[in-house]
């Protein structure tokens, strides 16, 4: 077969990676060392911020993918957070004995089961939510906002019907209560677990997104759904799978958040939604990496601000969002979309 030789193409410079947002977290950590003044206090605040950030990332990562891929503004995402936490009690309460056992292995086993239950229930709920509530309003943002908020209200009321309106106490497993003391710094054990779970989920998501064909399809679908369909893929099926997976992650985050707060209420999902939305806006809609950095930044800033200037803690998230958007109006890692 003959070939056509194109004119010589000028050599391109190596593809540059956008590292600036990655440097924000370490820069913030370093900046805070002198401002906090005490290294043990700084360490405690930092681990607390990282743990909180990881839990928010778990809750937000699904939402950012759902928005990026499906262009759906799901204001009902908080329902999965709450339902996940309550679903976990289906394991945690009957297996209370294992939670109270003085064995880390037994404690972690029951937590793993609870995580599985939370993710399974919320994945099924997410699938049904997409079929019944989201599907009729694809492409209609105003209706999406209204109907998904309505869906969240219905979910909250259903939680009250099923589990009762009272708050449910959710004690930590015996081995995860208390703190580890490093010098003069006290680090809560559960926060370390939250950091590990968050990192594992982030690593898994990045692995799937970057190293699998499903991940390629999701990334391509975030950018141009129409072209993915024109290549012969049924994006609708991908949508449903991503929605269910995003809901499951929210359920996992909800369970972790419930254990962190050691209490459950039907409104816990709607209460965290403001933070979740700030995180996905900071990160760039559709970007999992941006969502991860955004969650860490937001949680760290909230913790440091709570210590350094408690009166500013409430507005620290908004100030952070404004700062990031002034720097990068589409967020830290804006996904290209067509």
């Amino acid at each position, binding site marked *: 077969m*003959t070939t056509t030789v194109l004119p010589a193409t000028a050599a*391109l410079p190596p593809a540059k990676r956008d590292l600036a947002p990655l440097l924000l977290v370490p820069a913030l950590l370093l900046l805070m060392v002198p401002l906090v003044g005490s290294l043990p206090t700084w360490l405690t605040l930092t681990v607390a911020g990282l743990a909180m950030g990881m839990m928010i990332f778990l809750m937000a990562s699904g939402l950012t993918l759902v928005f990026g891929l499906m262009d759906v503004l799901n204001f009902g995402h908080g329902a999965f957070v709450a339902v996940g936490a309550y679903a976990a009690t289906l394991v945690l309460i009957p297996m209370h004995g294992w939670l109270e056992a003085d064995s880390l292995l037994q404690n972690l086993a029951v937590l793993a089961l609870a995580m599985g239950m939370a993710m399974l229930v919320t994945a099924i709920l997410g699938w049904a939510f997409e079929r019944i509530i989201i599907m009729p309003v694809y492409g209609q943002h105003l209706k999406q906002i209204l109907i998904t908020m309505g869906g969240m209200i219905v979910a909250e009321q259903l939680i009250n019907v099923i589990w009762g309106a009272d708050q449910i106490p959710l004690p930590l497993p015996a081995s995860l209560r208390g703190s580890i003391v490093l010098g003069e710094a006290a680090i809560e054990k559960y926060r370390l677990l939250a950091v590990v779970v968050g990192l594992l989920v982030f690593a898994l998501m990045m692995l799937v997104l970057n190293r699998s064909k499903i991940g390629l399809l999701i990334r391509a679908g975030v950018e141009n759904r129409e072209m993915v369909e024109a290549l012969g893929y*049924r994006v609708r099926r991908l949508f449903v799978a991503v929605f269910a997976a995003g809901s499951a992650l929210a359920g996992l985050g909800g369970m972790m958040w419930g254990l962190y707060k050691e209490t459950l209420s039907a409104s816990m999902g709607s209460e965290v939604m403001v933070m979740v939305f700030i995180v996905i806006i900071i990160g760039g809609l559709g970007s999992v990496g941006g969502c991860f950095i955004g969650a860490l930044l937001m949680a760290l800033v909230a913790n440091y601000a709570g210590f350094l200037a408690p009166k500013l803690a409430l507005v620290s998230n908004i100030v952070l969002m404004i700062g990031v958007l002034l720097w990068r109006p589409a967020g830290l890692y804006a996904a290209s979309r*067509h």
Partner: protein
Amino acid sequence: MPDALLTLSGVHTHIGQYHILQGVDLVVPRGGLSVLLGRNGAGKTTTLRTIMGLWQASAGSIVFDGRDISKMTTPDIAQAGIAYVPESMAVFSELTVRENMLLAARNGPLDQARVDWICGFFPALKKFWHYPAGKLSGGQKQMVAIGRALAEPRKLLLVDEPTKGLAPAIIHSLIAAFAELKASDTTILLVEQNFNVVKTLGDTVAVMDDGRVVHAGAMADLAGDPALQQRLLGLALDSHQ
């Protein structure tokens, strides 16, 4: 006369309140290069998008390889054997050239022999194989878009204004690549505004105006008849000469 691979009969397409295609009749013979010409807004891109199912035909039939595809979904139409290169090229800019090609290989891993064949047309693809497609120039992106459409054997290749906005050197290379694709028995329907780009390339030509095909026939007939060119393509032709 080769048999028809694609036949549009009385195709109408509405986009919102606008009636864009108003009874398009078009035949694409198997194994050649057909050209769809027309001024801006004549309905060429809408015709391609309607064939791909990206916009649904509101009336008429689209028969591809003996099957009516007018009510089929876009993925089904693609799986039936039609590849599409849109005007915007629509390369996935966050993905590398390799990943763009990998996605187009729907039925398994990339066939290395086929990749080598494609890179024969577009050597630049190999050079930028692991480079994010979004960082490439317009001409290089066009190569990725066409290469992606060729990543698996397809019966029909729809290409929408591939030369738009490209440098003359790149345009000449693309024309040569299309000539070789044509020689390899790939059926191509090429939308173009620039008559001079395609007059030596096309086997058949259709000219659209106001959402209808107003002329269809052999390219040689149109290329050899300046009066017909003037009547069908008007002043736009002068600017391309």
